[in-house]
């Protein structure tokens, strides 16, 4: 436990050191000695790239200073990689269980046909590469202790967060009565195929139902009664492609069971009311642009030709955060409004409510 006591005092030392390095932070110098010695932006070094299937790989990452290893099984992290000089960000579920001792985290990535970054991560990333990280987020998590009966409904790379949950249950020896349905085009493309079989062998409570959609077609939810007759009594976690999740949601709503369904989607859906629009002024770039209430501040800035910082573009990583000098913006996800002077706002998920000015 000594490392726990050591960390805050080390932080204090660095804070004191900033009188020597002002206006920079000691970390700005230390990271030149070791790229992981900085907490200014979270960093990680790729330790290993483990191929899982033909088009998927697990990245084992050693995070740098400022990482807490306290992610909850099922959460995702942002990963930023410099491609052609420019940081590109994506979010992926952590597949490793929360474990302080190993000092690494794993994420599993499937190369998407049109996803330049995912293909880069799976095929071109070299061990030793330093990447940027964003802290774990997400409500798609397993409670501790777990419920006595669980159903996982998984499609494709949706297995990743569920894998983190299964590994945690395995490691903590708290595997309850679990049914896992796993849809995948064919056996070769099943990520974690061998590990799942191993888990299934070791845990009596774990039953896995595999479906190869290339030959057997998509999961029909009417068949759920056969796959898992007592599904109505199980807390359910579902992760996979959008249409699959839509169908699952509908099925649970028809059964009035939506309360026991937990979903993870990989794309942001901006619901709720838009802003009202207005003219957004980018103070330092001396640019102004008229926008409607559905255009995010980030998109507005890009339209105006301002070099906006951005990351995940879904409100996770805070890379896009800027200071709102005046005016009002609305969070397109929640409808919350931000209008305090000098408030820091996430430009990728907010839209203007009337005229506003940003410090960039």
């Amino acid at each position: 436990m000594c490392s726990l006591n050591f960390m805050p005092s080390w932080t204090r030392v660095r804070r004191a050191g900033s009188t020597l390095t002002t206006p920079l932070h000691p970390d700005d110098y230390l990271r030149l000695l070791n790229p992981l010695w900085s907490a200014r932006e979270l960093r990680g070094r790729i330790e290993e790239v483990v191929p899982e299937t033909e088009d998927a790989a697990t990245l084992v990452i050693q995070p740098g200073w400022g990482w807490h290893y306290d992610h909850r099984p099922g959460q995702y992290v942002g990963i930023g990689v410099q491609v052609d000089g420019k940081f590109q960000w994506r979010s992926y579920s952590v597949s490793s269980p929360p474990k302080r001792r190993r000092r690494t985290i794993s994420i599993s990535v499937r190369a998407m046909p049109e996803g330049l970054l995912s293909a880069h991560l799976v095929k071109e990333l070299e061990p030793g590469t330093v990447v940027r990280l964003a802290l774990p987020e997400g409500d798609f998590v397993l409670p501790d202790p777990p419920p006595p009966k669980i159903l996982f409904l998984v499609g494709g790379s949706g297995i990743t967060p569920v894998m983190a949950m299964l590994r945690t249950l395995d490691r903590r020896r708290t595997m309850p009565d679990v049914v896992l349905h796993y849809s995948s085009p064919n056996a070769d493309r099943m990520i974690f195929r061998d590990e799942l079989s191993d888990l299934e062998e070791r845990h009596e409570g774990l039953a896995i139902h595999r479906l190869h959609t290339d030959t057997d077609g998509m999961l029909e939810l009417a068949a759920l009664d056969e796959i898992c007759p007592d599904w109505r009594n199980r807390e359910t976690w579902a992760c996979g492609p959008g249409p699959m999740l839509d169908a699952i949601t509908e099925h649970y709503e028809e059964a009035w069971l939506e309360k026991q369904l937990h979903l993870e989607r990989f794309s942001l859906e901006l619901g709720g009311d838009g802003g009202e629009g207005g003219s957004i002024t980018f103070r330092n770039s001396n640019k102004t642009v008229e926008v409607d209430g559905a255009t995010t501040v980030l998109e507005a800035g890009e339209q105006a030709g301002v070099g906006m910082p951005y990351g995940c573009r879904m409100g996770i990583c805070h890379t896009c955060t800027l200071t709102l000098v005046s005016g009002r913006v609305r969070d397109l996800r929640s409808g919350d409004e931000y209008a305090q002077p000098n408030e820091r706002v996430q430009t990728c998920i907010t839209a203007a409510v009337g005229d506003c000015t940003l410090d960039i």
Partner: protein
Amino acid sequence: MAIADVKDYAHLTDEEVEQLGRELDAIRAEIEESRSAADAAYINRLIKIQRGLATAGRVVLFASAHSKRAGKPAWALGTGLLGTAKILENMEIGHNVMHGQWDWMNDPEIHSSNWEWDTAQPAEQWKHSHNYVHHQFTNVLGHDNDIGYGILRMAREQKWHPFNLGQPVYNALLASLFQWGVALHDLDIEAIRKGKKDPKEMKRQLKQIWRKGRNQVLKDYVVYPALSGKNWKSTLTANATANFTHNVWSYMIIFCGHFPDGALHFTEEELEDETRSEWYLRQMLGSANFEGGPLLHVMSGSLGYQIEHHLFPDLPSNRYPEIAVRVRALCDKYDIPYTTGPLFKQYGQTLRTITKLSVPNSWTSSDQPEPPTPSIDRGRKTDDERPTRRSELGAWSRSASEVRA
């Protein structure tokens, strides 16, 4: 002679000016398109070198203060390393990062929105007084506070006052205390004198300057000397010398940007219904380059490419040399003057202007070149026909918002 209409001065038709604008836009688009990993490597390497030099300078000075044998050579070496680091940090790194030249990398650690530099002026105020006021209203009398920085008379159109007799002295003071002069720049002394400054805004700015300045002074004049123990004096003088060098150097480079002969001033009329292309033209006529090798250019923040910098303030500075070749070709093509010369000559002309303008106009002659052709009346719009435009300077955006604390 201050220019009221850049097109008249450059004897170009509207169509030619618009064509020039399109050609410059094309250069910008091409450079933006071709920014890549090599550019990112440039700024990252430079930051690494600069931080290495700064660390080496501090370590050598620390050693020289604690060892009897190291003595004066170590002091000189440490001071030189530190001064070089400070110059690089302010010029090629800080100034250019804050212009947003590296924002395209999407790296929050090298981004104009949060970069803070090693000088007394808070970054936020610099971005307003420099990126906005100076780069938008470049060389327009009464709008660009960089014409003489509120203390020097740098254009014959500015009214002479007996106060100006002391110009050579003020100039020397400004040079040696440059960062502190710059620190007060966005306060807009002129506006304060005329009682036009919002007192709340002034208080906020002063607080910001005080906080930044205090940390800078503590670092160089208290903490590092204290670490040197009983030889604190040698570290103190070394830091003071490094700061002095960095002040004088940045002052000289910056004064060579718009004050050599050939860099023209403009009257307010030029701003009225000015198009983007006319803005380009004004930047070209109002700025002056200087010549030198790659090292000189890096040490001066690429401001030897002042013309290119003013045309494209937010394109990466390492691309200015290739842009310069193309801008110069355009100047030849459109017969527009391209002011450049060796550094000593450019600064010599600046010094001559400072001295000449310390006395009334009638005592001296102008060194500005005459316009190539007599200007023609193009029948510009009358005041009533023009759209209204904000004319006030200094934190205009902030005083406009009442919610601001």
